[in-house]
């Protein structure tokens, strides 16, 4: 027994027939082929699977695909545009906000939602805004720093993309 769904993912519309029990995260990964959204706890505790539905951060392991019918979904693959990193992605890179990188897509998506709601969060507001996301590598120090620096960059530039091109060589910078 399948059900038809139609949604726009990262600006592209797609239609599929899915089992009603299919979780959105499995749909994104297995059907749409977008494997950047990760599964780490299966129970909506860790936030690795965070995506945006109509601009709002949700944990896609706890949403059925059919619940996203007719919605706009943004995944980590949809953030960078035309080879230019989103300022949050750039900030995570600059500030060493990731190590193994497994929780990172979820953090970046949650941070995108946070900064849209609150463009200049205090450290405490960052901590509260990202309390649904777990990381085991960074001790959170550089994630906090990355979100702070992304906020500054986004406020400085308005909507202007300031990030460097993806794939360009890393240049040594001052310690």
């Amino acid at each position, binding site marked *: 027994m399948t059900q038809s769904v139609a949604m726009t993912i990262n600006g592209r519309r797609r239609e599929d027939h899915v089992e009603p029990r299919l979780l959105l995260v499995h749909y994104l990964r297995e059907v749409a082929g977008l494997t950047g959204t990760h599964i780490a706890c299966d129970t909506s505790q860790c936030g690795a699977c965070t995506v945006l539905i109509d601009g709002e951060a949700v944990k896609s392991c706890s949403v059925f695909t059919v619940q996203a019918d007719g919605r706009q979904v943004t995944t980590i693959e949809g953030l960078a545009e035309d080879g230019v990193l989103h300022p949050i992605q750039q900030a995570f890179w600059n500030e060493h906000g990731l190590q*193994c990188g497994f929780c990172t897509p979820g953090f970046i998506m949650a941070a995108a939602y946070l900064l849209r709601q609150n463009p200049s969060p205090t450290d405490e507001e960052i901590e509260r805004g990202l309390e649904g996301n777990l990381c085991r590598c960074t001790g959170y120090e550089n994630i906090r720093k990355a979100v702070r620096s992304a906020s500054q960059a986004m406020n400085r530039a308005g909507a202007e993309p300031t990030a460097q091109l993806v794939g360009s*060589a890393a240049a040594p*910078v001052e310690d």
Partner: protein
Amino acid sequence: MAVTSMIGARIQRREDPKLITGHGNFIDDVNLVNMAHMSVVRSPHAHARIRSIDTSAAMASKGVVAVLTAADFKPVIGGPLPVTNSFVADKKQVPEQFPIAADEVAYAGEPVAVVVADDRYLADDAAQLVVVDYEPLPAVMDIEKAMEPGSPLVKSDRPDNIGWDAAFPGGDIDAAFAEADVVLKQRIGQQRVFPTAMETRGCVADYIPYDNRCTLWTSTQVPHFIRLFVGGALGVPESQFRVVSHDVGGGFGAKLRPYPEEYLATAASKLTERPVKWIEDRTESLQATTQGRGQIFDVEVAAKRDGTLLGLKFTQLLDIGAYHGVFSAFQVVACLLGGGCYTWKAINARSIGVFTNRMSTDPYRGAGRPEATHLVERIVDLVALELGMEPAEVRRKNFITSFPHTNNFGLVYDSGEYAKSLDRAMANIDYPALRKRQEELRAQGRYTGIGFSTYVEICGLGPSSATAPAAGIALVESSMVRVHPTGSVTVSVGTHSHGQGHETTFAQIVADTLGVPYDSVEIRHGDTGDTPFGYGTYGSRSLAVGGMAIMASCHKVVEKAKKLAAHAFEASEEDIVVDQGRYFVRGNPSEAKALAELAFASYGAGLPEGMEHGLEAVSYFDPPNFVWPFGCHICAVEVDPETGGVSIDRYVAVDDCGNVINPMVVDGQLHGGIAQGISQALFEEVLYDDETGQMLTGTMLDYFIPTMAEMPHFELDRTVTPSPTNELGVKGIGEAGTIASSIAVINAITDALTPFGIKHVEMPARPDRLWSMIKEARA
């Protein structure tokens, strides 16, 4: 003479662009045509006899390809899981563990059957339908009771529950205690913890029928180990068995062994003639991935009234779990490091490994060294408290000051400047001001505390001279450096980064050593198909051992390039000068050849007589000694006596890992390491029901992995004392933070509670524990 440009530079990681854009390649991202999915049916009992397994309903379920039990696997998997002998014990029992239980289960979560189906949902559906008839047996959960004669057995075919009993005598302990003015005793616990990599385990096995070839993708720290053991058990030679590990979402020691599921998925692929994927879910991971620590130390210390440390006696009781972890015995290193960075007349240690009906313990970030640091730093504080001395002064009085230093067990500390890092940390935290403030706040009924951890650790596993006698192996590391005709360089290594950034830092080393542009260097790791045999990444060894293997190959390449240059310039090899990748005849630097030009020549015609074509080298590096990072961490806390809640006000760390390749990466390793130690000190504990052996902390929330809100800002600084052990002068940093941090927090909490007469606090120092202790002290 080359001027270093890349070594020491804070450059962004080249690993990151794909990871921040969702293009990583983790194990669950590997998908093959016609791939089936495996779901593992696990024992719900900690200890039970299997009377029967009925697979008929599961077999009839939609999309099921096969339901397999031990009887199906026995003909295909030719042997038990490996166990590494890490030391010579007086008594040792090594029961064999087959990857799947046949007639008796010994921990909740042990595999008893697997279902292979067309997709994961269908496999999980059918797994619910496998009916196993169990006869529950008593669960052995308490390690002290398990040691008693007549205790119920963890498994009925064993003589007792003792896995090992090993004594480590280090000097004349009676003489040391005879001089003592004070003798103190303390029991110190190390609760079980989950390593909890964010990516759970998983694998994809693709066995090619009729060809006896297999590729196994798996999330691991040790691809070559996996090939050796899983290939061996399945009867596929290394030349036909390829293990591939792309991006790995964290390991922390829990992915450094072959696991039952890797054997089962590979065998299932062979039996079903389909590629088989298995991805562990989180609850499975908490049940069936190895856990860390799980130890009790009974400690006795002898000291003089002036604070001189004399002797240390301790016994380590280690909860092995139901079966030995592959490297569980390595945790005995806590005994050898129990003296910390101090001089002792004698140390007498004993380790007893005890089986229980729990999942195995195995190395977790630090593996034995966090336990050693926690033990000795706690004891030093108890001595200071007893003698009314400053904790820093007892430390300073007993520091080892001359190097190399041979400790009580014959291990040789390579270099160190312990007082320097202590002084620096005390200055950074403004210690006198902090003490003054503590006094003021105490007068107001507020309880702040300051905790020290001056640590030394052993890493860089390992010199074959040290590992061979106990383990019979040489934990060397490998590299292959190949310069292509137009000058780009491929470096293949036996280590395997799982978040540490080797692709960046190793390329920094190669760029400097060969004198080639950083961007021209590609680091390959994790695929046994194109890397030389290596022991993998753990024990903070990848730089000090693996990095040196890379250096060695680079040096060989430079030597050959010099010959090529001499030939090109028609000069003698002795007259060739190499300067940052430019080769010229002494006195004539304007006519130089770049390495790329020499590489091109090496593949062309007209080579010197007798020279082989190509420009490449393979090296294995066997370190002459371990390396010994050290440092001082100071933590300042406030405890709320009404709630027992702890807030960390400051966390200052001064670490010394010798020369630094990329300071940004080093700081990142410290952040994460410190966070894990803090988390063990304050929050984490694996809990099983004492009677039934059921896991009580089966989700991340029940267990509690801290969020950003629980972690303080880390104030890092470093001193640089190069290691004399290797040419790079490097030590290791992957585990240092965890090794140092738990006891800095606990000592701070204990210091805060001193006014209540509390002298010792166990981990995790959760609010309920502290609140009860304060309440009792007040009563």
